[in-house]
């Protein structure tokens, strides 16, 4: 692998010497391996970041990025390998302060406490005390002065006295960076920092990062948006399936090469539904989405799905694909536009209306929206169809048992019986129950939102097989996902990027094409 030769801003551009540190890498991870149970999260990977460098770490889901982050921040101990900071071995995992002085991570989930002031957030649990004694009375004046000084140093225009909950997402993020710097850390990990920012916010963030880089701060930048990597980073490291694949300078790296490194060879599922589309062009459309727009997540989207057709909607986190799917099924209220099933408009923003119109769906978060955890498989399967199981609100237990047993057989749910609690099932089988519930209402339209997230390969295959059976019986299906395997089951894929439809790929696309479209690299 290539050692990054390009080091931004050397000492001659006026960077204080202290930050150069003899050119030693500010962080170096060597031969890191980690497994959790039987799952290998990282297999002998490495990473080297030079002072003042913005280094991108990319890879698809499950590549091992988050495990590496947790090892680099001292939250997880690697099974093998060693992390060095400026040439020194990393401190023991228990010494939080030592870690904090070396590395900080700005997570997607904010670690700013909304109910206390900006100043206190910056110096939480190390507030200035009168006379400097650590257990002494806090000197609010000194604390505010120190916070104001820190904010001024890094050019952050925020009043240190206000409650942190009043800040914008962008300001909070900046605050987290400032706090990391105040510990003395000059290596900062940014985990999807642009996910919640708008365009102008991203530009300001990048300007800030460039400024900090010139002051010798190094960044590890984790992002799903590859064009951001090209924009801000000098070096990129690619992981795939828990292995290190590539480290190279961004200069001279083509987008094709980067995507190839991320995807490797095309894997699995190529046989599912390969060949000509099965639906008959004469059969009319079942689902029509007309100029549907979300409140902020996505702009106007229009498409139709015919009986027997499967349409994929692809998009990275924050692209609006999931929000679009949730709007179609009625979990979210649209800003404008309509959804019709068989030519009849569905009342927007209402799940019961959607179910009544024949839209069955598998929600994204099966624990939160999909299952009633402590109840039986039977009850969970028939939750949406209780009206068909008896009259006047009574539920006939025989009818329920019959419906549930049939569904369990159809979906191949592995369980001791319909009475078993769903909590006791494996992830894959739980997802089958959620799927079964969607099918129980014999929907005209089946919408699946990230249906195979966190399920094993075997269950994945059987879930996608069920979709195929449903469409063969004349249903229309919509699969919202960023997993290539899911999308391959679709007859065509609508690709979204930052809330807009950017491409529509017919069956037969290559991994490269799809990833490029999802990452917003199309059209050049």
């Amino acid at each position, binding site marked *: 692998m290539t050692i990054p030769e390009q080091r931004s801003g050397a000492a001659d551009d006026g960077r204080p010497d202290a930050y150069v540190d003899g050119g030693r890498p500010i962080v170096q991870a060597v031969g890191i391996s980690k497994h959790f149970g039987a799952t290998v999260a990282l297999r002998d990977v490495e990473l080297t970041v030079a002072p003042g460098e913005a280094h991108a770490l990319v890879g698809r889901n499950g590549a091992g990025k988050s495990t590496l982050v947790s090892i680099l921040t001292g939250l997880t101990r690697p099974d093998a390998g060693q992390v060095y900071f400026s040439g020194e071995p990393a401190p023991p995992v228990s010494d939080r302060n030592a870690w904090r002085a070396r590395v900080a991570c700005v997570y997607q989930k904010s670690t700013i406490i909304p109910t206390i002031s900006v100043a206190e957030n910056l110096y*939480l649990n190390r507030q200035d005390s009168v006379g400097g004694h650590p257990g002494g009375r806090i000197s609010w004046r000194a604390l505010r002065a120190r916070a104001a000084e820190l904010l*001024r140093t890094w050019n952050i225009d925020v009043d240190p006295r206000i409650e942190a909950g009043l800040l914008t997402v962008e*300001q909070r993020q900046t605050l987290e960076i400032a706090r990391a710097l105040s510990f003395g850390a000059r290596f900062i990990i940014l985990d999807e920092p642009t996910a919640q920012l708008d365009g102008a916010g991203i530009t300001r963030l990048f300007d800030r990062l460039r400024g900090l880089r010139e002051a010798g701060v190094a960044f590890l930048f984790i992002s799903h948006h590859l064009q951001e990597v090209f924009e801000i980073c000098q070096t990129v490291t690619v992981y795939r399936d828990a292995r290190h694949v590539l480290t190279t300078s961004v200069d001279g790296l083509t987008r094709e090469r980067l995507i190839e490194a991320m995807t490797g060879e095309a894997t699995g599922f190529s046989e599912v539904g390969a060949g000509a589309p099965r639906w008959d062009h004469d059969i009319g459309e079942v689902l029509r989405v007309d100029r549907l727009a979300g409140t902020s997540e996505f702009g106007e989207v229009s498409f139709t799905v015919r009986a027997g057709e499967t349409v994929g909607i692809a998009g990275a986190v924050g692209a609006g694909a999931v929000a679009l799917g949730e709007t179609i099924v009625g979990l979210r209220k649209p800003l404008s536009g309509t959804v019709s099933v068989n030519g009849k408009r569905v009342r927007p923003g209402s799940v019961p209306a959607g179910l009544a119109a024949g839209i069955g769906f598998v929600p994204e978060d099966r624990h939160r929206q999909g299952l009633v955890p402590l109840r039986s498989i039977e009850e969970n399967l028939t939750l949406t169809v209780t009206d068909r199981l008896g009259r006047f609100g009574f539920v006939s237990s025989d009818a329920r048992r019959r419906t549930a047993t049939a569904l369990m057989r159809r979906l191949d749910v592995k369980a001791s019986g319909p009475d078993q609690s769903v909590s006791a099932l494996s992830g894959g089988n739980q997802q089958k129950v959620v799927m079964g519930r969607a099918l129980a209402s014999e929907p005209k339209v089946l919408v699946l939102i990230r249906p195979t997230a966190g399920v094993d390969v075997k269950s994945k295959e059987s879930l996608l097989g069920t979709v195929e059976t449903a469409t063969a019986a004349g249903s229309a299906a919509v699969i919202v996902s960023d997993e290539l395997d899911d999308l391959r089951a679709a007859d065509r894929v609508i690709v979204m990027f930052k809330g807009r439809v950017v491409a529509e790929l017919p069956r037969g696309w290559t991994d490269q094409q799809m990833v490029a479209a999802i990452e917003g690299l199309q059209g050049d």
Partner: protein
Amino acid sequence: MTDQMAVPTVVDAPTRATGPKLARFRDFALIPVIFLLLVAGFIASPNFLTADNMVAVLQQSTELSLLVLGEALILLVARMDLSLESTVGLAPVIAVWLVLPSSGGRFNGLGLGLPGWSAIPLCLLIGVLIGALNGLLVLKVRLNAFIVTLGMLITLRGLQIAITGGQSVFELPDSFKYLGRAAWFGVPLSVWLCIVLFAVGIVALGWFRHGRSLYAIGGNVDAARAAGIRADNVVWIVFIVASLLASLAGILFVGRLGSIAATQGQGMIFQVFAASVIGGISLNGGRGSLFGALTGVLVLKLIDNVMNFAGIPPVWEQFLDGVIILGALVVSRFVSGEAQD
């Protein structure tokens, strides 16, 4: 360092300056209400705004205010403790039970031969043990604080009934009655005690790192841990302090009323929560001040007192109490601008 960096500033800060003002305003939100109540009482009766009556109101507020002090600390770390009202009754009963001789009275103790003065430290120790047990169940066994302390509320009250046979206890060491009965400089000792304890609490929460950590834990416990705060230890200590304060409140009751009623503290927890929330303590944790909570107590107690003087028939008192508390909650919801869900 600044000169070398061309870092642009984050310009949009629409929330400037309104923050600190609002927070301070929230602390004093009930002061005008207290003032209005004083005026209303003054109109209702000439005997209301007298030194005697005011001292009486303060003394009657002491027990509730100690419970609110404890509960406010627990609510700040985003937990709750319902069992405080039972601790108020049980801790003094056990203390007296340990100290009294085993024969000769209507209520007989264990006859351990312990001196009478030891009843107060024993009572406080029992408070500590109850708090530690609550903390153990919530933090180590990882049970939900609501249901644990609800169970504890019933268990502790049940234990008190079992020990006393459901009777009030009149045989008490004199020293045990001192705190709730004595007066220094014309003001009841219990009032001085409350003033001192609230002052200690306000200073600790305002100016000391450990006190500030309560706000951090209640605001975002993961972030607090990430900042090196031992959140579980702090929460445990808070549970212990709250039960300790409840047992002290029990001692004050005993001194003021001259006996341990079988129902001492029973039903108080509703008032405790009402006073805390009206006083601006957030049920979601991390927000509110002890001073605010204290004003909440005074509002509730003044309302009771004014109603007495206004000659409202006692049969209506409970109903009006409830209505006023609900009204106050609605008002404080809009003053704080925070949803209480």
